[in-house]
């Protein structure tokens, strides 16, 4: 099959998120298919500044075609239009403008899809909220497969989003909660879909380098947060809860936060922000953490949560995020909280009941083994692409709309 994967930014610098998901799927699809990545020259997800060279290059088995971003994102303008649109009652052109301001605005990418999209059997789009998907998918709607990475935030409720979803020919969802959300919000019936999740390699047996953690000032026991340290990821509330807990419980437990810091953090001996960490440190953290906390309110799938379970770490997740609660319940791999009382009590429970906490971690790992190993995920993707009427002989002729039996 000749496949195109359209994504807002692409590179080895992005381990997680939809970029990591796209790269993981594309590399594995390239073992059997001819895969082209259609993306922008942007690297920074805030400004969308052009940093990668424009044009065609190779990334292992993948052909990568990059298009320049014509306008960097103005956060003021973006915040203004977000306020208008999220308040409800915005006009259609204001909603459309939101997607333009969100970026990365790359009209040459749209021209490419318009002119050459028909040469691909299937065009897979990641993340409906970005310019290239919102404006690009309708140009190749008949062969489009949308990986929406939708979260229960105001964007999914916009009229423009509701009208957009039925235009995709097929869907690959990350969780049942995401599928339910998009189905609920869609203005019309959706095409065939499959829930694929994301793949993980088995955890490294050696467990990284614990001595490097000591050098970084990390002490056991500690509670681990993995990912971007950002108010949008629930980190402000997490830090507030944790500091209050430290005072109330009088426990010498650190909160270790590993990821790029996008918000001010308090100077406190029990809050340790490590910034971006390399793979060795990450493995060491996951091998020694007592609890992994996931405080985000909006997720389509938490890779950090799966990574924690991959290492047998019990989780404490925000119950107000249906996806996190759903994952946690399905795996029986952790506890969930919806306020400070629950956060404090459950954290104490996990720290005080070592055997039970480890059992939860083991159950989480068993869940990852069952559902989130790459061969299993790719088997679902391949079977879905076949079941939706795509065949190797269809190259250049356009794929027909698939059967709904793939659901």
């Amino acid at each position, binding site marked *: 099959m000749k496949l195109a994967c359209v994504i807002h930014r692409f590179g080895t610098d992005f381990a997680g998120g939809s970029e990591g998901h796209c790269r993981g799927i594309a590399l594995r699809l390239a073992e059997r298919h001819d895969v082209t990545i259609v993306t922008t020259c942007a690297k920074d997800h805030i400004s969308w500044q052009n940093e990668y060279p424009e044009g065609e290059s190779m990334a292992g088995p993948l052909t990568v075609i990059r298009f320049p971003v014509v306008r960097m994102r103005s956060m*003021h303008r973006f915040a*203004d239009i977000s*306020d*208008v649109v999220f*308040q*409800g*009652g915005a006009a259609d052109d204001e909603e459309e403008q939101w997607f333009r301001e969100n970026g990365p605005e790359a009209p040459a990418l749209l021209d490419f899809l318009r002119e050459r999209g028909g040469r691909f059997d299937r065009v897979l789009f990641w993340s409906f909220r970005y310019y290239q998907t919102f404006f690009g998918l309708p140009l190749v709607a008949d062969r489009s497969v949308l990986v929406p990475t939708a979260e229960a935030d*105001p964007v999914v*409720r916009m009229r423009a989003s509701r009208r957009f979803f039925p235009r995709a020919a097929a869907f690959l969802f990350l969780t049942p909660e995401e599928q339910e959300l998009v189905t609920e919000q869609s203005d019309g019936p959706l095409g065939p879909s499959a829930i694929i999740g994301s793949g993980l390699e088995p955890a490294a047996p050696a467990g990284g380098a614990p001595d490097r953690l000591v050098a970084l000032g990390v002490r056991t026991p500690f509670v681990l947060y993995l990912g971007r340290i950002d108010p949008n990821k629930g980190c402000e509330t997490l830090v507030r809860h944790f500091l209050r807990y430290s005072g109330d419980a009088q426990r010498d437990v650190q909160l270790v936060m590993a990821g790029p810091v996008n918000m001010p953090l308090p100077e406190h001996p029990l809050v340790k922000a490590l910034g971006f960490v390399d793979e060795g440190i990450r493995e060491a953290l996951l091998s020694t953490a007592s609890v992994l906390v996931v405080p985000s309110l909006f997720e389509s799938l938490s890779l950090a949560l799966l990574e924690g379970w991959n290492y047998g770490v019990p989780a404490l997740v925000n*119950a*107000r995020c249906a996806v996190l609660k759903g994952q946690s319940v399905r795996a029986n791999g952790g*506890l*969930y909280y*919806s306020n400070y*009382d*629950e956060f404090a*009590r*459950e954290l104490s*429970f996990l720290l005080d009941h070592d055997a039970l906490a480890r059992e939860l971690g083991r159950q989480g790992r068993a869940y990852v083994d069952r559902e989130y190993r790459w061969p299993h995920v790719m088997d679902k993707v391949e079977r879905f692409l076949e079941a939706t009427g795509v065949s190797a002989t269809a190259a250049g002729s356009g794929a027909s709309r698939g059967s709904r039996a793939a659901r």
Partner: protein
Amino acid sequence: MRELGGEISSERRARMVARGGAPEYRDPELYARVEAIFRRVLDSRDHDALLVPELLDDADEYALQLRLRYASHRKVIGPFLLFVKRTVLLPLNRWLYEYSLENFRRQQRVNRLLFACIEELAIENAALRRDLEGRTPDRANRPA
């Protein structure tokens, strides 16, 4: 998890009573019902889809305007004034604008939550009234 949830709720009730909360909370069953109502609001309700704003004559009149909208009624110098406001005054006062904006956003969240709570109580009341009316014999059929 359920056991732990029960313990947390019990402790919360005891704390509320100790701090001088509603005396009705001395009754654990009553407290559990009250908590369940508020939990429904917080966990299950979509705070963007509420009835009261739909019933208002003009919902915009009651909505917080988060965005600063510049306008001028002066035809000739209006565009110049708007240009000065946008390019000179707004950058100077951006910090104050953003501080206020964040607080307006919080206020809006509180407002929506309160509307949702009131709606939940109205639903509860309506359902109870319907049940009660179903149980009460129709007045018309009562013997004189």
